[in-house]
């Protein structure tokens, strides 16, 4: 595949409009770099203060489009896209045995300090993925919010800018969806659940 900057912008737009093949064509362009970012997550280098994931994604984007000043809408599309790819990479890692493969001695690393009860490479990550798959059907913006804020590691401001909502809205929605995820992943408050069907419904979906 030979992709010019214009091609990438076009593909992003197609993807945004719901063209599924666009995702598959875009993915190779960012996969390797995002893998490196993800690997740094897993190795916990994020705290070494070298670079923020969002700054890295921005860098990837600038390189792909080859422009010094990128169009804001295009950039937002790219971030939501990158966050999705990142989710997929981390999921693949968890599914392939993730943390276990790296030897029992390895400490589990939280996906994000905001949600330390979800850890990279273990079952909680798989559960997160299933939950987001279900949520996608009813509230896709929340899924984007989780992907951007918690998986890619954007700040509330950045997330708001990308989703074109205020920082306050990001924080409010984040709190709601975080609570919902906590209950879902830790199983807290389950006995009170009205639906009570989480286990059965959850196990039947979430597989890509």
């Amino acid at each position, binding site marked *: 595949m030979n992709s010019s900057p214009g091609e990438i912008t076009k593909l992003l737009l197609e993807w945004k409009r719901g063209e599924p093949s666009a995702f598959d064509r875009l993915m190779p362009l960012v996969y390797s770099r995002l893998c*490196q970012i993800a690997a740094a997550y897993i190795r916990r280098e994020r705290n070494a203060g*070298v670079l923020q994931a969002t700054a890295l994604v921005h*860098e990837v984007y600038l390189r792909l489009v080859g422009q010094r000043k990128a169009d804001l809408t295009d950039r937002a599309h790219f971030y939501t896209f990158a966050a999705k790819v990142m989710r997929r990479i981390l999921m693949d890692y968890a599914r392939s045995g993730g943390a276990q493969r790296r030897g029992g001695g390895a400490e589990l690393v939280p996906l994000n300090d905001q949600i330390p009860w979800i850890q990279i490479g273990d079952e909680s990550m798989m559960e997160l993925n299933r939950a987001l798959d279900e949520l996608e059907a009813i509230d896709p913006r929340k899924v984007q919010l989780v992907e951007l804020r918690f998986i890619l590691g954007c700040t509330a401001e950045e997330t708001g800018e990308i989703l074109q909502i205020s920082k306050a809205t990001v924080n409010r929605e984040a709190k*709601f969806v975080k609570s919902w995820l906590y209950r879902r992943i830790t199983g807290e408050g389950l006995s009170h659940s009205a*639906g009570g069907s989480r286990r059965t419904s959850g196990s039947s979906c979430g597989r890509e």
Partner: protein
Amino acid sequence: MSPETTSLERWRRLEAIFGEVVDISAEERTARLAALCAGDSELLEEARSLLRAADDAEQATASFVPPEPREAEAGDTHIGRRIGPYELESLLGRGGMGAVYLARRADGQFDQQVAIKLIDLPLAGSLFRERFRQERQILAGLSHPFIARLLDGGVSEDGELYLAMEYADGLPIQRYCEQHALTIRRRIELFRSVCAAVHFAHQNLIVHRDLKPDNILVLEDGTPKLLDFGTAKLLTPVEGAADSEFTRQGFYSYTPQYASPEQVLGQAISTASDVYSLGVLLFLLVTGEMPYELREFSTAEMVRVICEQQPPRPSEKAARSAIDSDIDAIVLKALRKEPAARYTSVDQLIGDLEAYLSGRPVAAQQGSFRYYARKFARRNKVALAASALLAATLLAGIAGVLWQARIANLERRKAEARVDDLRKLSNSLLSEINGAIQKIPGSTAAQKLLVSVVLDHLDRAAQDSSGDPQLELDLANAYNRLGDVQGDPWVQNLGDPQGALRSLDKALAIATAIVRKQLGNAAAQHALGLAEEERSRVLFGIGRTEEAVATMRSATAVLEEPASRPEATPETMMDASSAYASLGDEVEHRDPETELAAYRRVIEIGERIVRLDPHYSRARRAIAIGHMKIGSIIAETDPGAALPDYREAIEGMNALPEDTRGTLLTQRQFAIILRKAAQSLMQVGKYRESLSDLKQAETIERPILAADPNDARAASDLLELLDNEAECLENRAEGVFTNEPANRTADAAGALKALLEERSIAERLLRIEPDNVNWRCWLGAILIRIGLQQSTLHRKEGAVELATRGVAILKAVGRQSHIQVYDLVAVAEGLASVLPTQLRDPRFAVECAERAVEMSHRREPAFILTLAESYRAAGRPEKARAVAKEGLALLPAATPATLLSSLRKQLQAEAAK
């Protein structure tokens, strides 16, 4: 509640309720909740459960203590570990991809210290691992005294990837220079050695991508050792389809301070990126400082500084010692923002370093008169070998004119006089004198001197020329010639394509303005066409092919118009014809239709010229070459049908007057035409005629080689001629598809004689270039064929030894990872046909032939024939037949002429066997 079990509306209500109560006190909450849920007990319970989860999540997050970053890890658990056959002894350093350890072979096989790079890539998938393995093999083949060898690599028991490298116990180059207080000169000599290693890797198609002092260690004895060649690429995790050109070139770990603009912007990385990093390194070595300061590692800062900020001259930054302006020029040329403006290869950089070290002018200097004069004076003598006298005379002449020009300026003569000056300079200096100098090897310095002086004059004259069309036209033509000298890739030029484009743009602008003002001004139109043509040639030379072709098309149209007027002179027509020929060359192999049409125009216009002036030899030569080009296009699909055009070309060349035919260029062209014709004749089984053309070509090539026995191009030209000759005789001796009577013994003896001479040429070429795979392969194949002919002639003595040596050479060549497709075919042919039969290795032959066929995308019938033969030798006749049919399907539909092609016949024979 899971969202799928509820409706969107319910989910939204829940969210709204949650939002309203989550931040209020517990007492208030109960009442608010009851009110908001308004009797919906299910919703109420759901909201309560979610609020509890919110509190718990809050607590869990608050009590969370972030783990210490990994870098702070106490001790290193890897020391003493065994990785493959190595035991880790101590930590040498940490990098982006993992850590490097000093290790020792622990299996007792050798006592060898190595550096082990342990790669921590938790996400590396199986495809990445496979590519890692392949690339590692390529890198392991990179053997140079200044490059730390990659010894081994693989996957440890714990699943980590590792690389074992030659351990270099040295200091980073910058620290070495400081510690040994090397002089600038010694630093440049050391740097030149580094460049030599980089150039070697580039010739093996490996780009470093991360050259910096930490990767260039210098041993105590002063030997540099480059580390991590190609590992930046090796360590790019890429999965399957992700292995596109884009990703491969886009992302690597690199060190920002040494990264080129294209690396920062994620554009294509090439050898020019290494040239840039070398420029940064040289800057550091001679000044002790970096050319840029990066205050922060943000993308914006990197883009701003690396892609936009002009680097200072090293001499401005050097604290200690005076830096020569040559070094300034060399460093700044390596640090140019646009890759094409840098040295086009490390070799050129080395050339300039050596020029500097020996006091010759460096190419990086755009050059002023003062600069060259100083250089000449400093060197004391102009070392021009054979043509020294002529060159000296010319230089004296130029100096005289320049002197006059300087006096003229001093006296500030009037504009009219300057027009005269200008004419003198541009017409006399550039065309006549430069034309003469161009033919003298090693005369670039003199040409540069000319160019810089003329450019000065032109730019000044352009400012003064207000509207006089004749003066402006002269200006345009002068800029045109200047562009030619600066960067026409087809003649010896000054290697300054950007400068050439600038000059040509000036010519274009002036000519276009005149054409607009005075429609029908034939001279201006002519100048415009020439400028476009020249511009196209320069663009083509720097790889901007599309633009070049478009510009050349426009040039043909512009030049054609005045050439088709009744009053057109042969010169005007010749310029149009040349533009068409250039267009044909630019689309060669890519657009046969355009190429054919262009050369047909060349011939038509040429014939019109010859009718006007039968002695116009340039036109005659253009006609001949036009026929040859057309013949080549036709021969691609139909060698028999190409013969009439080749015959026309040969007759045309023979009819040239003696003085034209005698030049080296024409001689070589004639030899090429003869050989092409001979190859087509051989294809259709006309061996006698083929041999006669080859013999005539030989009478041209032999004296060229005799004049300079070290001329590798002349040697390889003769080698190919002899090879065609041997093949003709071999085929006729075997009676391959011909009804020509054969004297088997005489033909075999003739073939043997040619092969023996080939052998001595190939051996001589290998002495000049011992690492050249192509010559090595050629030698192996020749040895086998000598053995074959000896057995035909029943001269068994030594035949087996020769064949055995040939087989060994070919097998070694076939195992190379970087190998050209023709060499692979030769390996397969040799291994499938060698006598005695027990020396054959048909399985390896099949493997090589398969590789060659795949490399050519299964589109080359000749390679497919070799594959079919290999299969047959391997005892797999059904596979051989199938492959031969595949090859036949690629041939164009048979016409009476093509029926004769021996390739077709051989494929048909294989398909039927």
